């Protein structure tokens, strides 16, 4: 029953967006002031968008809710990783509390914390700039080390194709940074590394990207159609 409801809602939702897009906004006979047809679905489009935002927000909340359930269980059962669970829950409460107090001044006043404004702001700054900013940048920066390691282990000149790929990669890597200009800036423009890199992006890369995108979107269209129509899914 639950899956049937989901399928019906999916079908109706998809049908709404398809028909709203396909039907003309309005049709009028030549010289007529009033249209004889206006798209009956367009007035509902804003409501549909609001529902998308609400659904997105609910989906966004599902992550933290599941994590809290899982980590609370870990903590109370005293399982392995309970300390990490406690750290997660502590920072979740801290983050929610400080961000909530920052965003909702009425809440701050209601809790009698208006006097502690600077302390709350410092706490928020510590979490935002001191932790989130640093952790986010660090985890992304680690990619540089993995890239170097991967280049060392896997980038092997073992066949003609691998050789072409390697030479292309070197031209792009050098052409995309000022070093390309530094090394070949004395040559005519046609022979400079940035010009070659730009050509690789604009010509061979574009051709391949078009092929990939056409294939990927054809697949996505087919998958979307199956999902929309509920084809190939078990009902229960």
């Amino acid at each position: 029953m639950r899956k049937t409801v989901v399928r019906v809602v999916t079908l109706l939702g998809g049908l709404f967006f398809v028909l709203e897009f396909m039907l003309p906004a309005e049709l009028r006979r030549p010289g007529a002031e009033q249209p004889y047809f206006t798209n009956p679905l367009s007035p509902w489009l804003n409501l549909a968008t609001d529902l998308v935002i609400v659904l997105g927000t609910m989906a966004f909340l599902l992550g933290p809710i599941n994590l809290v359930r899982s980590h609370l269980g870990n903590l109370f059962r005293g399982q392995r990783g309970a300390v990490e669970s406690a750290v997660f829950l502590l920072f979740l409460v801290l983050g929610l509390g400080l961000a909530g107090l920052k965003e909702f001044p009425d809440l701050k006043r209601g809790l009698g914390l208006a006097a502690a404004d600077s302390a709350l702001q410092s706490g928020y700054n510590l979490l935002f700039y001191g932790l989130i900013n640093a952790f986010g940048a660090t985890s992304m920066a680690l990619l540089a080390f993995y890239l170097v390691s991967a280049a060392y282990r896997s980038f092997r000149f073992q066949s003609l194709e691998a050789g072409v790929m390697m030479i292309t990669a070197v031209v792009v890597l050098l052409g995309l940074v000022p070093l390309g200009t530094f090394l070949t800036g004395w040559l005519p423009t046609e022979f400079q590394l940035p010009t070659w890199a730009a050509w690789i992006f604009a010509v061979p890369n574009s051709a391949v990207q078009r092929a990939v995108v056409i294939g990927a979107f054809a697949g996505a269209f087919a998958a979307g159609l199956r999902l929309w129509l509920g084809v190939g899914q078990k009902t229960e």
Partner: protein
Amino acid sequence: MRLLARLHRIDRRWLYVATLVLMLVPFILPLTLPAGHVARTTRAAFELIDSCPPDKVVIIDSSWDAGSQAENRAQLEAVVAHLCRRRIKFVVTSLGVTALGPDFARDIIRPLAERAGYEYGRDWVQLGFVQGVAGALGPLIDRFCRDLWGLYPRDVHNTPVEELPLMQAVRRGADAHAFCCFTYAPAYEWISFANAQYGLRLVFGCMTIMCPAYYPYIDSGQLAGMLVGNVGAAEYEALNGVAGRGTRLGVPAAFGNCAIIIAAVLGNIGLWAERRGRRAAA
């Protein structure tokens, strides 16, 4: 030959240390590299923004956070510096990607705007974050283009948008002269909805590794311009005549790319030497 063959078996921890040392060099020594070449994608973006008439605004979607700040931050700085220099009014949004977007954008934009004498509400506005569904931003972008006021009833300071003087000129996203999206990988829906249906001229600022995916749209004219990572930011700064973060970070990026090339070369020399040694032994 045996020494060369050992290059094939370097412990990866040594590679990590070497990368770290190499990447630190440009932060310790004040090195500069020339930025003579300007890609056509960057030039097109600059010319589009530069041609904004006085009665129009540019909308910037700043949807990046700490993870991609190494490149998106310089791009945003470069474009906002250009807007401020040309006295072009702008609206900032953060649509559907990261809730931290508005905080990061504010920290960059506010000082630049204040330095340029911009008044909030009259010359620039920040609308904040709207939650979307990952991979399905289409409905939001459609709403953005035809009903910006409906999508953003209030700005980040909780002021109703109809009370902000600048917003009188931008009831719909499609009213803007140009739209710039700075994020790790801008959504394709900006092209299929905002450009294809509403004719909004788009500039993307993306991470370098994501840029190959957008070149076909440059060729088709659906994407007016693109800033490719820090290099794009540095080129934009060169066109604007102001050397900023993009120019500064070009040198560490060059060292990072060199580390990758050197690692690949060492690995290949080691492999070659080892095979040669094995053949000689046989």
